[in-house]
């Protein structure tokens, strides 16, 4: 009896020593994988930032439902960049240094992202850029591949955007396209690049004009534009003022088809309110009806948030997380460097298509596997145009 009690005591004692180490091993296996998400959650760009976060959240839930990444659930750690460069950089540093994040997705504005790129280069964490389009990001990778080896852009670059728009212009047989945008750096760069791409096709933009993003007086510009009689208007403003531009075009009786770069006008709720009478096209990374993956994502998004996404800033950030999860599954380790070298070589599926990267770490948009999509407003919903042969 005494011996039995002694054995039991010994077992209990041993288990006291063993338990912590066992639980530690278990927690290491199932400890969440922290992924930093940087976007403006307050300030003037908060609506875009919230869409960004919704997209990543949905992707994280999807991945976690399937068992996470190598058994580890994804835990999103957010940083509010507020649309400011300094704030974005400080938040990136906080996520990396205090939260121990090794993988970042963001930021939103090009200026913000350029600050975060430096943090990624200094701390050697992996940065996936889904929205910011400035050429400077991939330019840095091209100029100094060692320093920026862990920076990848999964979204459109300005060049790719311009190429896709030029392809649409060609497909529509337009010979007199005009560009109307908002006076922000991104729109000016896009107009410049589009002009360059079109000139290679022998097409000239007949007018390039910009309105103030804060106080848009658009009608006078539209009057100038009407005098030139364009056959297609490229509306470069991705924000709310694009609504006013379309409305005022109708007031002036302009019947010219419009291609919006996406964003606000690709939101079906906005288009329904607007009910445009002119042909309205919008560019998106993915759209309902374009592929079964897009259909699944759009339905899941609507189920969770109550509306269909617009297929860009509410879609690409989630794809960045899917690419990261795919690369980590292949790498079978948690080192940003290993994941980066896998991203350079492999192809990774997302809602918008299969992502692969060029030497500047730019996702290969405009290829058959990652084409982007042009949608057309059909009165009650957007319908994707059939891809060109």
């Amino acid at each position, binding site marked *: 009896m005494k011996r039995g009690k002694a054995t039991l005591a010994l077992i209990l004692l041993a288990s006291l020593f063993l338990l912590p180490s066992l639980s530690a091993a278990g927690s290491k296996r199932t400890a969440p994988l922290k992924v930093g998400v940087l976007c403006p959650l307050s300030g003037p760009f908060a609506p875009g930032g919230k869409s960004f976060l919704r997209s990543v959240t949905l992707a994280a839930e999807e991945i976690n439902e399937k068992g996470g990444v190598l058994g580890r659930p994804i835990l999103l750690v957010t940083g509010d960049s507020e649309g400011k460069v300094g704030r974005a950089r400080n938040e990136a540093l906080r996520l990396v240094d205090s939260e121990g994040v090794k993988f970042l997705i963001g930021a939103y504005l090009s200026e913000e992202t350029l600050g975060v790129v430096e943090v990624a280069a200094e701390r050697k964490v992996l940065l996936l850029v889904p929205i910011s389009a400035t050429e400077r990001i991939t330019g840095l990778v091209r100029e100094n591949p060692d320093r920026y080896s862990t920076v990848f852009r999964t979204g459109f670059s300005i060049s790719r955007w311009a190429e896709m728009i030029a392809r649409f212009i060609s497909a529509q047989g337009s010979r007199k396209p005009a560009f109307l945008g908002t006076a922000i750096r991104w729109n000016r760069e896009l107009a410049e690049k589009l002009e360059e791409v079109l000139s290679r096709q022998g097409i000239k933009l007949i007018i390039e004009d910009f309105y103030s993003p804060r106080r848009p007086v658009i009608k006078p510009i539209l*009057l100038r534009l009407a005098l030139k009689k364009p056959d297609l208007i490229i509306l470069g403003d991705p924000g709310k003022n694009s609504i006013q531009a379309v409305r005022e075009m109708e007031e002036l009786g302009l019947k010219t088809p419009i291609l919006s770069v996406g964003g606000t006008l690709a939101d079906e709720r906005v288009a329904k*309110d607007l009910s445009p009478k002119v042909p309205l096209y919008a560019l998106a990374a993915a759209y309902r009806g374009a592929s079964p993956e897009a259909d699944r994502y759009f339905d899941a998004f609507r189920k969770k948030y109550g509306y269909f996404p617009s297929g860009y800033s509410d879609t690409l950030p989630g794809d960045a997380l899917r690419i990261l999860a795919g690369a980590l599954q292949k790498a079978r380790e948690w080192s940003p460097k290993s994941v980066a070298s896998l991203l350079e070589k492999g192809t990774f599926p997302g809602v918008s298509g299969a992502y692969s990267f060029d030497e500047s770490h730019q996702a290969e948009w405009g290829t058959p596997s990652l084409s982007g999509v042009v949608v057309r407003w059909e009165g009650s919903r957007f319908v994707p145009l059939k891809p060109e042969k």
Partner: protein
Amino acid sequence: MNILAQSLAGGFFLGISYAVLSAGLALTVNVVEIINLSHGAFYLMGAYLAYSASSFPGLSLLFLAASAAGPALLGLFIARTLVNPLRKDHFSIAVGTLGLAILFEQAADLLWGDRALSVHPGAPLGEILGVKIYPWHAGEILLSGAVFILFFLLPRTKLGLAMRVLAEDEEMAESVGINTNAVRATAFSLSCALASVAGFVSAPGLVLTPTAGRMPLIFALVIVILAGTRRLLPVAALSLGLGMVTFGLALATSAYVEYILLLTAVLVVVSVRRGGLFTLKIERDY
């Protein structure tokens, strides 16, 4: 396309939307002697009500009445609880009305969301020299006419007279038995209602987001600073002139150069004539 007619019409409608908004703000500055930084938020409140009204086409007039009555009552409440007690402390009243504006923006975010909304203008009523006239254009003309009639008749009423006396000399108003707090509250309430109705009528020409009231407020302030607050005619004339000049400058130069030129002009005028362009004599406190 008739460019001249389109430009004149564009400038005219831009101008009258400024005029109605500025008239209400001028009333507050003149009688209550405060700058109400939540004036733009009341404008936006009316515009959001117009958006909600678009889901109930048969009840538009009811919503229009609500866009006047609701902000009027709210204005009365704010005047009694915030404006009257704090109005002599310029810093507190500025912070207080700014806080109200932010509160309204947050409320709009909760009620209507942060995405951009637009109100469909409906079918045009007709065309004049190639310019399409929509119901909201007619609404703006009617509203500005109503504001003119109101400001013409008001000084001929007991309330209007009390406002005038109060605007001239507060001590004198009190000495002749005018309830100055009640008069101020009524003026503030009327100004809030005017801003909201202006927003309701102009809604189809706006893009609605919770912060969309800020820019109209800046413009109303510019007009009130330049035109002075004592008379409606300079406010209306300047609003129309500004609408035309803005449109013309944007047509001739570019839409963002026009904004810079406009703000520069304001700075120059304010530095040269402290009381505004249309004040006959600069009033001095000493």
